[in-house]
């Protein structure tokens, strides 16, 4: 089912969005951004946060709906990272010892899915990845950005 906010963007905000796409970025910023539109953008974000929260906590229905298998051991991300503690999103990208490479947060998410959770890796541009990322960043908003810190 389409969420109300998505419906809002599809139908009511569609002309403004379409116009923005047609005229390009050079003039798009001149269009007034209404409080209603700002709210809509925020709600799109929070919808992803909510999905990411459920995925992060091993919600089977959300995983099924999004076509991902994040764990085959019964474990979920939140079992080692309550409230995303110790995910350290603010330190990526950085050299990650377990992978022996310079890694992004997405690389680390997939490493955890594949190793501790023994699940199936997800695509970098997948909806599930974006949702997980949204939840992790939202949970730690306010944390000082410190990329590269091991």
């Amino acid at each position, binding site marked *: 089912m389409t969420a109300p906010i998505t419906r809002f963007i599809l139908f009511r905000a569609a002309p403004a969005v379409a116009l923005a796409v047609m005229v390009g970025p050079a003039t798009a910023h001149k269009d007034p951004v209404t409080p209603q539109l700002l709210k809509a953008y925020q709600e799109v974000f929070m919808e992803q946060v*909510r999905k990411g929260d459920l995925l992060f906590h091993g919600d089977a229905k959300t995983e099924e709906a999004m076509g991902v298998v994040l764990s085959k051991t019964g474990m979920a991300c939140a079992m080692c990272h309550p409230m995303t503690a110790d995910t350290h999103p603010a330190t990526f990208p950085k050299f990650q010892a377990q992978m022996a490479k310079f890694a992004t947060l997405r690389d680390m998410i997939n490493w955890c899915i594949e190793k501790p959770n023994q699940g199936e890796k997800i695509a970098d541009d997948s909806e599930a990845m974006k949702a997980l990322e949204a939840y992790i960043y939202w949970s730690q908003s306010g944390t000082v950005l410190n990329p590269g810190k091991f």
Partner: protein
Amino acid sequence: MSELERDRREMAAVLQQPGVRPDPSLRITRRTFVHKSCLVGAATVAETFAWWPLLNTLDVAYAAEAPFKFAWISDTHLYPKSLNTRFVEKTVRAAKEVQAMSPPADFLIFGGDLAQLGKVEELELGVELLKEVNIRKVFIPGEHDWYLDMGKKWGELFGQPHWTFDHKGVRFIGLDTVSRGPDYWTARKMSPEERMGHMATLDGTVAGAWAGVGRDQLDWLQKTLANWDRNRPVVIFSHNPLYEYYPPWNFWVRDWREVNEVLKPYTKVTNIHGHTHQVLYNEIGTMRSIGMLATSWPWPYAPEGVPKLTKPMIRVDPGDHFDGVGWAKIDVSAEDKVDAEYMMWRKQVYAQSPDDYAKSITEVLRPRIADNMWPY
């Protein structure tokens, strides 16, 4: 000021009175038990001595009529073997090591969370795995053992969830800190599985402040201690800490005021607890508390409120399932010293790095958002 902040301030005002500390005879010494694995290299041993010593050694006056030791295993969080053998392997390892203790331990305390989702097969698997240990075993429940059937199977297997016994001059008490969660499930018409699912989520907000001792058990505790000399040692086992650490994750009991009221007259109280899956050491009022390791997985330290006296363990390597976990051995010597030793399976955990711990200091965490969705 947030509710949490108000709680914290009140707790500090009530419990951390100037000059109130555990009895001086419960002196923490610099004597350190060196884990066998630390003997591998001189550098490791040196590092161990550098940071570890304050944690483990307690002197307990009157404690030992004769030297003895006991073992602690907790937080095995067993899933059925068909789903996850990793936690099974670690429980087997802990059981074998306890059984191999020489001289043998006088008894084993199981500190709760034997099962992950409270299923009969998980609890029975735990009993099966712990058969390896053939000394006396005593159990207290964790929330993971309880909230599928409200303790029915647990009671059948292990009996009364709170108990007491005296052993060689020490009064041991097992408390049930899990079974008195406020009923949030009936009004929401939750199935037992849904209820269990929420209790199995450490950072969930639906269950609220569930951990507590309860008025009836507090009365029982008072009665149990009434005939005990106030200067003789008491060791209390609980699943949750009996002091406040981080209420959003239920790293506390909500009736801490009443618990403190009952224990205040007793000068030598040690609380040994599970649930937090990490090295913790705290002194509050006249009681000292030691947090034990899980065998299953380690929790990260909470973003705030880690007791000042804790020497935190370093962040674990998630690629090593045996990192940051283990069991514990408590040794009561003829000189009335009690050593609580963490039997960590990966020796590198002893090498604390201040820089590494400092990584989490800038973390700012928010509670879950999905708990606000309806239905869940």
